[in-house]
Each structure stands twice: as structure tokens, then as C-alpha cells.
């Protein structure tokens, strides 16, 4: 029982860190951090990486990598905008999701059928899909339809979509075989294969989920910035990955992958950025701090997990 509590404490570390960061920056900024407007900002900036992270988690849990998130954001928003013009307002989501799903499925199939490492496939997508979007857009910038923008400016819609997605992913990730298999592949892929589970199917599903979530995050982003340009979503995947790993999700995936860590991690980076901006720290320094914090977080996550292991071993 005590071991269960200790393992649980390990999961709470990111939440404590988040709390500590909040306290530090609210004190340092004399409460400006927690002003209504700033909170609105923090949440606004956290929502897209959290949503995309909910999908990417399935891939990271397997110990694989998906850096196509940023270009999927651009691709999906493009199709969303086109669909709104062609078929009306509600076509935005199906069109975006379809684009994300197809990209994810394609990555999954290439990964399992031709055994190309996921990092390489998605790297090639980062380059080629961006080119595709540029080709389709030309030099124009697509404006997103006003009703869609208005819809996403309301908190009720944003928060209920976010909550819905979190609930769905928590369910799939923790209470269905698919979630268990994804984590198990991160622990030992051969062990999964040798229990008669179709590893390829699980992988394809994971990449597909990652693509769909990236697409939904894309619609949110496009609604916030008001349209699609050729650079929409550039290096967005880095932000998502930072959220995952700062939250303490192991880089090698496995059972330590948790939804709570993702959410805490994403909030942590936006909080950190916002706090530093409020303290008038220059952009370059902010970026430097982000990089160092990531390194520290990954190291710290390892130390915590090792100490829990060791204590369990020492009995």
C-alpha cells in the first residue's frame, strides 16, 4: 500500500511544481500574474498544446516520436477554412479532423509497413506537408469565417470542448486496452507482440489519434489568430513536446505516461513565459530559460522515478 502512495506522490510532483511556480510568479509580479486578463491569456495559450498533447501522448507512450503536429495544424486549418466557405460553418471540424486522421494514418502505415522510424517519417512530413500547404495557399492568407471565430471566443465553448476531449482521452488512455497497449509498447514492444497483440494496429491507431488531436488544436489556433498563413503552427510541435516532457512524462514512454502530467506541463510553460514577460525579461532570455527548464525537468523526472524505484527495491 505504501508503495502505491509513493508512486502516487511521484505523479503529484508536476502539480506541486506548477503550484510553486504560480506562487513564485504571483509574488514576484505582485499579483499581476493572476489578474483576470492574464489568466485568460494563459489559458488561451495553453489550450492548443494541451489538445495536441492529448493525442501526441499516445505516440510518446510507445516511445515513438511525432513532430508532424505543427504542419497538421496548418493543413487542418486550411481544410477547415475551405470547408466553411464551401459547405458552411459546421463543416469546419469534420474537414479538419479528416485531414488530421489521414495524415496520422499515413504516418502509422509507413511506420509499421515499411519500418521507417517515426521521427524520420514525421520529419519528412514537417518539410513536405508544409510545402503542400504553401502550394495550396499560394501567397494569400485565408481568413477564417467570422462566426467560427466568434464561437471560439466564448469561454463556454472552448472549455467544454477541452473538458470533453480530456475526458475522452483519460478514458481511452487509462480504461481501454488501446491505452494499455500503447504504454506497454513503450515498456517492451516485443513483450506486447509475444502476447498475441497486433502491435501494428495499435501503432497506426496512436498516430491517427495524434493527427486528429493536432487537427482539432489547429482549428483552435486558426480561430484565435483569425486565419491560415503558410507559417501557421511552425514549431508548435516543440511547444507540445515541451509540455509533455516538462510535465515529467518519460521520454522513453511506458507506464509513466499520464494525462495529468501533460496538463501540468503545458500550464507550467505558459505560466513561466507569462511570468517572465510580466517581469519585463527580454524574449531571448525567456527562450533561454525555457530551454534550461526543459533540461532540468527531464533530469528531475528521471531522478524522481529512480528514487521511487530504489525505495521500492530496498523494501
Amino acid at each position, binding site marked *: 500500500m505504501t508503495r502505491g502512495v509513493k*508512486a502516487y506522490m511521484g505523479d503529484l510532483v508536476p502539480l506541486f511544481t506548477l503550484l510553486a511556480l504560480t506562487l513564485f510568479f504571483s509574488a514576484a509580479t505582485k499579483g499581476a500574474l493572476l489578474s483576470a486578463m492574464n489568466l485568460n491569456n494563459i489559458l488561451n495559450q495553453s489550450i492548443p498544446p494541451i489538445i495536441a498533447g492529448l493525442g501526441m501522448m499516445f505516440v510518446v507512450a510507445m516511445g515513438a516520436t511525432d513532430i508532424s503536429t505543427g504542419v497538421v495544424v496548418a493543413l487542418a486549418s486550411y481544410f477547415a477554412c475551405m470547408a466553411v466557405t464551401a459547405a458552411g460553418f459546421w463543416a469546419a471540424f469534420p474537414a479538419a479532423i479528416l485531414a488530421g486522421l489521414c495524415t496520422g494514418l499515413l504516418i502509422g502505415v509507413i511506420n509499421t509497413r515499411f519500418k521507417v522510424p517515426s521521427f524520420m517519417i514525421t520529419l519528412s512530413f514537417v518539410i513536405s506537408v508544409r510545402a503542400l500547404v504553401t502550394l495550396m495557399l499560394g501567397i494569400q492568407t485565408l481568413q477564417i469565417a467570422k462566426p467560427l471565430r466568434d464561437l471560439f471566443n466564448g469561454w463556454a465553448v472552448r472549455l467544454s470542448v477541452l473538458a470533453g476531449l480530456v475526458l475522452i482521452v483519460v478514458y481511452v488512455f487509462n*480504461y481501454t486496452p*488501446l491505452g*494499455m497497449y500503447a504504454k506497454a509498447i513503450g*515498456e*517492451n514492444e516485443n513483450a*506486447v507482440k509475444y502476447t*498475441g497483440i497486433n502491435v501494428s494496429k495499435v501503432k497506426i491507431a496512436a498516430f491517427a489519434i495524434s493527427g486528429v488531436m493536432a487537427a482539432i488544436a489547429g482549428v483552435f489556433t486558426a480561430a484565435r489568430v483569425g486565419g491560415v498563413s503558410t507559417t501557421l503552427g511552425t514549431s508548435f510541435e516543440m511547444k507540445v513536446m515541451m509540455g509533455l516532457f516538462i510535465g515529467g512524462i518519460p521520454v522513453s514512454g511506458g507506464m509513466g505516461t499520464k494525462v495529468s502530467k501533460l496538463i501540468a506541463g503545458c500550464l507550467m510553460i505558459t505560466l513561466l513565459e507569462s511570468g517572465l514577460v510580466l517581469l519585463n525579461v527580454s524574449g531571448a532570455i525567456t527562450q533561454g530559460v525555457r530551454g534550461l527548464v526543459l533540461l532540468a525537468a527531464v533530469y528531475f523526472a528521471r531522478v524522481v522515478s529512480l528514487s521511487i*524505484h530504489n525505495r521500492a527495491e530496498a523494501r
Partner: protein
Amino acid sequence: MTSDIVLSVTGIDKHFGATHANRCITLTIKRGTVHGLAGENGSGKSTLASIISGIQAPDCGVMFKDGRHYTPETPLGANRQGVAMVVQELGVIGGLTAAQNLFLGKMKQFSRFGVVNVRRLLEAAHTAFAKWELPEVPLELPASAFSIEQRKMLELARALTNDPDVLVLDEISQVLSHDNRRVLYRFIDNFKAGGKTILMVTHDLEEMLAICDEISILRDGALVSTHDAADLDADKVKRLMIGREVSGHYYRMDAKADYSPDIVLKAEDFHVPGQIERVSFELHRGEILGVCGLSDAGIHELGTALFGLAEHRTGRLTYIPANTELKSAKDVVKTHGAYLSKDRDAYGLMLDADIHSNISLPNADRLSGALGFQNPRSLRALSEQAMKDYEIKSSGLEQHTRRLSGGNKQKVNLSRWLVKDLEYIILDCPTRGVDVGVKAYIYGILMELKRKGVGIILISDELPEAMGMSDRIMVLKDHRNAAVLNREADFSEERIVEVML
């Protein structure tokens, strides 16, 4: 000359956290002998062997070699003082060629101005194998292309390049098949004849009794006693290891094959290019079908292929009761079949996950309801039942599997399949790397399954085990089914080896 002492250890003590692995062990090893270390899993054999080889430092205690203070701070230090070890875990580097592995850390002697003379390296590697008549591995291929057995031979050859006068072998024969064990025994004889000494750790008591001159028995980290091998027999060793009386038999006692005429599995013209050549057989309800063969005969590949994980497989495998053809691992699991790989750590368990996750993995699909819902409580109940039914010793379901003893790991590995009702099971060396107690326990489980009418395919590298447990033995030779022998008529080591060769 033969009676003088090459190595003595006095008062060796070692703790790992709260575990007292070695308790004040005092032991002398005579020159030119083979000295065996016997004990159950966790009795401290491997710890003692690794202290002697300089892999770990003792908390206290002193060692003498050739009458001089012996303080190996690293394995390299031990090498310099004439002690080398072949460890239980595989220690070759997959990306390097065999020759490079062989002289890892000693490359300097082959290089000039930083450039390695490959020809000289290969010659030296060739000599290293030839000197002790070990089966040479392809020297220019990367070690990742080798079988476990070839890697072991490579490690043995590497240890010998140090020209040690004390060689420590930890569980080396576990992974070797019948023919390579013979090579090993021949090597041990030659080595001993040169006045050199071997310290040997093995779970195979028959083997230990056959090749050791003296045997020291450890229990709970302490030395129980040291005996002349001639004064011991397997039962006596077991008694000393466990500290109480154990029943003399652990194989089944009946001399007759005994199974139902109903067929469970039928393989016809089973074929995998380069691995299995048109093998056909039938498995009956309640039958234990042993599978034996030399190292490259294809017995382990047969297991993988039956489970549907071999590529380019042709021929038919049918689950007779439902008349369904089994094409994939999924089909096997669906028809209540199961498979246990020989390499438990690589293909069986998730070592860094807890026991609960490991037991849940093969049962998740079966226990999930509408929308794939898995009730955490029913999964937990299943794991708890498996822990209880199969007497897995651990600190709880959250314990990480890596830290379990070999026997308990194997119990986790088996129990996760056995908690559901099986129709048939394919076991590849299920008793590899487990101690006598767990071995007997696993044989007990096999008999229990047999009574329930489960069909069992028992792939084994150990002839006594296959003969002790099987109703029939299928002998593979050069990837083909060479003969199927019956328990009543043909079970003798000579007969089986005759077919194998």
C-alpha cells in the same frame, strides 16, 4: 601440486540495501579443480562470483590469490591478477564485430597511429577460438547477428583472451543446447588439465555433479558447507540448498504415455524458409509433447512459428475442436492458446513495469466490455488471484518486475496466461534460469494442466526434462521432424541423441 590453494576468500559480506546478499562467506578453491557453487535463486551465488571477479566490492572480508592479497577493484583489475568471468547476462556489444568484441579494450596492440590492423586482429581472434577448440563464430559479422549461443561462446573466448588461471562461469550452460554443452565440457576438461581452475555457478545439478570436483552450497547468503562432488547426489544437494527434505522426484513418475485421443492442434506441412522444413504433427488433449533437437535444428523457431510470428510461413495449423485455421498470434490467443518465449526478459515481461501491468497485458482484451471499457477492479482482482494461485513472492502488485528473482519472474510470466482457461500452451524452455524449487513447482503446474486436458508443447534444451515430462517427444533434425518417440518404448538419452545426430 593439485592440492594447493589458488584462491581463498575470508569473511566476505555484502549488503544491497536491506538485502543481506553474502553473509561472512569463507571458502577455499583448490588449484586445477572445477569448483561448483550451488544454491537457490537469491542465495548469493552470483553476488559471490561477481565479488571474486571484481564486478562488485564486498562490504568487508579479504581475498587471497596464490597466497597474495587479492583486491580486484574492477573486472579489469581482476583480469590482471588472473581472474576472468563470463557473466550470466549477455555482455557483447551488438554493433561491433565478433573480433572487435573479443579484444574490446585491448585494441591498442593491433593499432598503429590509431589505425587498427584488421588482418592481425582477425588472426588473433581466430587463434583465440582455435586454442581452446571452441566453435568459431563468424569473426567479421556484427555480434547482433549472432544467436544467444554464439554470443555466449564469444564471451567465453573473450574471457580466455586474458589468459586467466581462474575462470568464473555464471550460468553459462543455461543458454547452450546439447551439442554446445558437450563443447563446453570438453573445454572445461582441457582447461583443468592445464592446471587451471574454474569456479562454476549453475542451476543444473546433474551437470554440476558431473563436472565439478568440489561443490559449495549457499543458502540465504551464507555458506552451508563444501563437499567433494563424489560424496554428493542430486537429492543431497537439493536438501542442503533448501535446508529441508524435498521429494526425490520432480518429474512425473508414470512410465506410460497417457492422454486423450482427441486432437487439439494439428500442423500440416508447416514450413518457414530456412527455419522449419515441412513439419507435421498432432497434439492431443492432456498430452505433453516434448520437442528436442540440436542447437540449430529449429526447435525454438518452431515455437515462434506456431504462435504465428514467423514471416513467410506456409502450411496449415488447425485448432481441431473448432476447426479453425490459426494464422496469427491473435488466432492462437482467441482459441485459448498461449506461448512462452525462451527469452523471458526480452520477449515476455515488461521489466520496468509493475507485476499488475504484466499480468493484465494478455488479459486486457478479454476483460474489456462495451466501448472497450476495462474495469480497474476486475483487472486488479485477476492480478491478485494470479499472485495467490501461483505463489508469486513479492512486496505487492506494484513491485517492479525487474527486481524479482528469476523464479518469481517466470511465475509472473506463466500465471498471466494460466489465469484463464487454456486449451493448449506452447512452452519454450519454461524452466530456464529458475532454481530447483520453482522448477519442481513448474513441473507440478504442467501435470495439473495435463490433468485438466490442456495440450502442452514443451520445447526443451534439457533431455532429462523432456524425457521426464513428455508423453511423446518430437525430435527435430536439420529443421525437419526426424522422429516422434513414445514414452513407453523409446525414452532413453541414447535413443534421442541418436536421432538428433
